[in-house]
């Protein structure tokens, strides 16, 4: 029996979660492999919700698989694809099947995804979504109706510490904290000082909230440049791009893992955050190497 | 189908250039019909379209040199309009009806004749 994520956040000094990206299609065997490989090495497996607006297997479905295979799922819910009715319904279903952790986020615009002509919903925004989960936790739905069997979610959200300008982002983080979250997982960060500045800001508002630093290994200078141009909210500094460019051919992944592990170590040693959230999209099988290099195994 | 070339000539540049071409006896096709305008920027899309409706085989818009328009922006606007006209004509798949813009100064009659010859060549190549 795994420990509920809520308990881990309370007890553990350094929390580690990893992302399990859903597949495009119905074949989940590979995902099951990743789940089996990672479930005991990390404290929670976090499932994205049509990430980058690319249609995939549902977050909820993968969370069920994680649950079935004995892992601790963290359900990501975006506001892009569902209105308030659908979101509430999904959350009721999730809770009834033992999925008790939810990350509330806005979601990327459909313009960046593979169904650009879709109508994007955004009936709610991420702050309102956090409020909504609290409402459900209190035994009522958004319209004020009593629920027959309530829910009790552990609520998390996301933030972008490297945004420019930062101040408007921080105001939004402040609103999220006031709405009440147990943890924040950040967008990928590459500058330690940015992370430090961000956590100081959060600590000033909420001492108890757990902050998990987002780690996305970059495996080539080309990928870094691509991400800078195309992935919303990601800013990879030039010195890292240079470091990657200098890595000998064929050692890109190793270099990426090295850089990621270095960041994790620094985060842990300087006690800047309460943990990390590792997103090695498409290379989930190599997450253990990062954990090992960072001394987390 | 009259097959003429209609040339809208700015009175500050192309029109005197055309006069000078005549005085120097620089010959060009007889099918040219000059319409004098106060500035290339006065030439409107509808003037060009109507010239084609009337059977013109090509339209020239001739204005002052870049950066030296008597009315500052008239020549650049005319260039944009000519581009727009080409787009409108392409939209309706009316091929081989060239609209072109040339910039010249009043003392360049050769440039005027070259513009006329160039458009004549384009018409001939398109077989109209």
């Amino acid at each position: 029996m795994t420990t509920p994520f809520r308990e881990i956040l309370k007890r553990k000094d350094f929390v580690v979660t990893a992302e399990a990206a859903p597949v495009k299609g119905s074949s989940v065997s590979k995902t099951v492999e990743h789940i089996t490989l990672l479930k005991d090495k990390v404290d929670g497996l976090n499932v994205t919700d049509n990430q980058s607006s690319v249609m995939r297997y549902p977050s909820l479905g993968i969370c069920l698989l994680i649950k079935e295979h004995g892992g601790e799922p963290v359900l990501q819910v975006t506001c892009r694809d569902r209105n308030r009715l659908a979101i509430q319904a999904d959350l009721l279903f999730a809770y009834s099947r033992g999925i008790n952790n939810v990350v509330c986020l806005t979601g990327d615009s459909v313009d960046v995804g593979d169904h650009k002509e879709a109508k994007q919903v955004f009936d709610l925004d991420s702050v309102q979504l956090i409020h909504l989960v609290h409402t459900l936790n209190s035994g009522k739905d958004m319209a004020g109706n009593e629920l027959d069997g309530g829910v009790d979610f552990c609520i998390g959200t996301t933030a972008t510490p490297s945004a420019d300008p930062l101040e408007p982002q921080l105001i939004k983080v402040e609103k999220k904290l006031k709405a009440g979250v147990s943890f924040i997982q950040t967008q990928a960060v590459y500058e330690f000082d940015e992370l430090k500045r961000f956590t100081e800001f959060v600590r000033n508002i909420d001492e108890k909230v757990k902050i998990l630093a987002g780690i996305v290994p970059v495996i080539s200078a080309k990928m870094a440049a691509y991400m800078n141009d195309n992935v919303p909210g990601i800013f990879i500094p030039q010195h890292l791009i240079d470091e990657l460019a200098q890595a000998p051919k064929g050692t890109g992944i190793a270099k990426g893992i090295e850089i990621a592990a270095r960041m994790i170590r620094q985060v842990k040693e300087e006690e800047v955050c309460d943990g990390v959230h590792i997103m090695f999209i498409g290379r989930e099988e190599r997450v253990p190497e990062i954990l090992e290099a960072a001394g987390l195994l | 189908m009259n097959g003429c070339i209609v040339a809208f000539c700015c009175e500050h540049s192309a029109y005197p250039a055309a006069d000078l071409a005549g005085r120097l006896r620089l010959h060009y096709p007889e099918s040219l019909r000059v319409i004098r305008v106060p500035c290339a920027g006065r030439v409107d899309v509808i003037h060009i379209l109507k010239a084609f409706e009337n059977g013109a085989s090509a339209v020239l818009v001739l204005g002052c040199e870049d950066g030296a328009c008597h009315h500052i922006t008239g020549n650049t606007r005319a260039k944009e309009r000519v581009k727009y006209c080409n787009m409108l004509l392409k939209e309706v798949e009316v091929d081989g009806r060239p609209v072109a813009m040339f910039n010249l100064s009043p003392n360049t009659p050769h440039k005027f004749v070259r513009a006329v010859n160039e458009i004549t060549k384009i018409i001939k190549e398109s077989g109209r």
Partner: protein
Amino acid sequence: METRIGIFLCNCGGGMKNIDFDAVAEKVARMPGVTCVNLVSHLCLDEGREKMIASIREENLDRVIVAACSPEFKEHIFRQALEDAGLNGHLLAMANIREQCSWAHEGDVTEKAVELIKMATNRARLLQPLERKELPVNREVLVIGGGFSAIDTALHLSRLGLRTTLLEKEAVLGTGTGEWQSLHGFDNSSMTAAVEGDRNIDVLASARMTAAEGTIGDFTVTITREGEEISRKYGAIVLATGFRTELAPTSTLKLRTQAEPISGISIVSQEQLFHMLHNSIVEAKPRTIGFMFDFSDENSRFPTLTTLNNALAAKNKWGSEIYIFCKNVKVDSEGAEKLYREARECGVVFLKCETTPRMSMDNGRVAVEARDVFLGEDTVIACDLLVAEELLLPIAGTETLSSLLNIRLDSRGFYQDENVHLYPVASEKKGVFVIGWCRGNLDMGRVLTDISSVVMSVHGLLSSGKILVEVERVKVDPQKCVACLTCIRVCPHGAIQLVRVDGDKEVAGISDLACDACGICSAICPAKAIKFQGYRDEEILAQIEAIGES
């Protein structure tokens, strides 16, 4: 009432042999509305004009077609003939059958001539009379600037009886440029004294223009002086704001500031050298002096003159060895050739280099390393004093002034200069002029030309106190205008504003004074509400329709 069109054919005394005028006359006479066709051999001469006037009167014509030479040459003469016959001059249409028909083609062009006349006739049917009116203008002139060109312009205008205000941002006139002008042979102090003694010139020092509106003949300018706002009215505005210099970016060593002690300075500006030469505040005479110019900005007439003057003065006063590093020496300005010869004769060495020389400090001296293209070898010259290359740049505030007055800057940030149609001193806004160094890097001769040009232009515009304008030549139809502001945004002359008509409705209104009759607005109006008399859509399209008719 049916139109009565008279056609006047001129064969230019037999200068158009490839047109059969009798055939033309016969064909054009058949066009509807044509009352008479007259064949004249020299329509532009007195005899021809008299015939024309008589015919207009006798036949009671209300439209006149002249088929002759280009309207570029004689249109105004024929217009006057119409006026003399009691007809509005704008009821004339010309067919250019000489330059653009007879002379442009070999072989018989009778048919083309007929068609050109048809085009003109089609247009003429639609022409409307255009009234002219005298509008009063303010005779006062605002000259912005306090340097040589500003002062000289004001003095000239005053002598012609036009009151002038000199607006200077510094506390006194002539600051900053005094030495430059003395260098080129002008006495600054006597000029400022002349201004002070001139009752026609009003000096507003420590003052800036902070707002401007209105059009030629009627500008309202807000001037801010020591926090106080003054509103004044002028008929014309002359910008003579001068220039500033900056060390060229190619110079790798820093220029000392003026505040630092003169002794020990090894890199100086032209102005600092001038100071050293003329104020005798130099401890040790520099034995070797280097000059650099024409590397960053090849438009170097002014730096050339300054260099030659300073080099000669240094040679005479200190007997220094002088080396001039430059790409080219531009000696086409007045007096430059002579100065250059003098410099060569007294031993100044010119080194022609394709690339900017390298400079380094060497024991308090500046080592200049250059490759002379004629010698083809590298030369290193240690200079006690190096006069660095300077760039001439627009003064701070140029952008502010240009946006206040709505005039453009060129690619280098100077006031409109490159446009040959406005050359040398007009801006795109009627009644606003730019002269001297604020429109670019000029030599003294050109500055003097600017001053005369602007004085003539302003005098011509304002001296009589009124301007003759064509009334509503370009006009907005208030019924059709949807006040979309497009024309206001596109007018290159700032001649259109929102106005209230019929009590309250806001529509675009064109100032007859400021309008320069380009027709850009009438082409772009999405509601087709702007009519440009003589070039209305109808008038242009009528010409197109005549093409190929026959």
